[in-house]
């Protein structure tokens, strides 16, 4: 019984508006209005409010508003057809895209910074890579450098002023050593470590000389010196820990 009344109630707004075509349904609703005072009250109240709604209109849009829709629309279509004319057009990305870009960009930046730091950290931990790089770098520059008898060019992270300095470790691949002055500050420990790690792969020419002839010339000059001079040079070398 209650279900039937609920079904009739749901049809009440359509009955008031005259939108029901089924005569049997109309009869059922009218019978209920006559016989059920509560239903009758509900019908009257709903009817009043629906009549009120029909009598009220929303405020009209401004005059000539409808004349402006098409021109603005055509303008938008033209703009859409020629994107990129305005260099700031990317700022007009939909909120949807900004919603993704804004959190993603800082994450990317953080990742780049972290990966850069991580590479530096690895380069300190694995000097083998540095030596291998050094060796290949030396070979590549070997033919391109003007020969200078008084200068030996070498390249190694172990010749940096400070072996513990991260920056010089990663960027100090261009050390130029004046052989005559022996103005080199090297850490003995670094040399030992280097030899332990990759001694087999290092050749004398890789480290000291860009040309074997230079080395032989120096050796012959050294042999021509008297014993005292040779001893002095050797002592100096020992003092310099070379």
């Amino acid at each position, binding site marked *: 019984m209650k279900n039937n009344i609920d079904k009739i*109630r*749901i*049809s*009440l*707004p*359509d009955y008031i*508006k005259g*939108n029901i075509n089924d005569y049997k349904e109309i009869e059922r609703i009218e019978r209920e209005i006559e016989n059920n005072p509560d239903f009758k009250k509900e019908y009257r*109240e*709903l009817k*009043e*409010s*629906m009549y*009120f*709604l029909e*009598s*009220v*209109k*929303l*405020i009209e*849009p*401004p005059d000539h*508003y*409808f004349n402006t*829709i*098409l021109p*603005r*629309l*055509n303008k*938008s*279509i033209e703009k*859409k057809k020629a994107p990129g004319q305005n260099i700031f057009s990317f700022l007009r990305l939909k909120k949807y895209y900004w919603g993704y870009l804004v959190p993603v960009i800082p994450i990317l930046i953080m990742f780049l910074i972290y990966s850069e730091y991580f590479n530096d950290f690895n380069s300190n931990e694995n000097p083998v890579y540095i030596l291998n790089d050094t060796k290949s770098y030396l070979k590549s520059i070997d033919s391109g450098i003007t020969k200078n008898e008084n200068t030996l060019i070498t390249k190694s992270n172990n010749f940096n002023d400070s072996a513990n300095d991260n920056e010089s470790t990663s960027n100090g691949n261009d050390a130029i050593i004046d052989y005559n002055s022996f103005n080199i500050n090297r850490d003995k420990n670094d040399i030992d470590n280097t030899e332990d790690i990759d001694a087999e792969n290092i050749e004398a020419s890789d480290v000291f000389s860009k040309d074997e002839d230079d080395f032989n010339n120096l050796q012959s000059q050294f042999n021509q010196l008297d014993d005292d001079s040779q001893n002095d040079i050797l002592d100096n070398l020992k003092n310099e820990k070379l």
Partner: protein
Amino acid sequence: MNEIDININSEDSDIIESFNNGNKNAFNYLVLKYQKKIYWIIRKIVLDHEEADDITQEVFLKIYDSLRNFRGESKFFTYIYKIAVNYSLNYLKKNYRILSKKADYDTEVYKISSSDMRPDELPDSVEKTKLLERAIRSLPAQQRAVFNMRFYENLSYEEIGSILNKSVGGLKANYFHATKKIEECLRKKYIFKE
């Protein structure tokens, strides 16, 4: 069919065919033909003119982009009606919090302005409009759309169902609850004599 053969009174299918054959002006006829209807459908759902204007533009841009994909399986008006209603409902969902605050604010305004009114005195047309807006704002998004389509546009439940992808039974219930809620809202504001 070329540009000369169509006008604002031509069949939708002819206008669309002309557009798809390269006559871009054909779209203008569609806009002129439906702009008022589309605007008012949207306006009655979102209530605010500025918002309705923005959504109307978006709806027609969407129609412009998708006109080539329209296969004529449903009536063209049902198709654009569906786009308009969905855009309006999306707007209501996105701005739910702002709109709820606005509805509360409107209630306060009305209470102040109606403080001197006797219960048997009907409000003037401005206040009536305010009441109508307030009553419609009290409805949840879908009920608001169903109410507008049924009450103002006289669409059948089958047509509303095809627009919102809902069953006829559910829509009837939605419409009934919407009218009841509006009636309660109006009654609270002393419009009717007891």
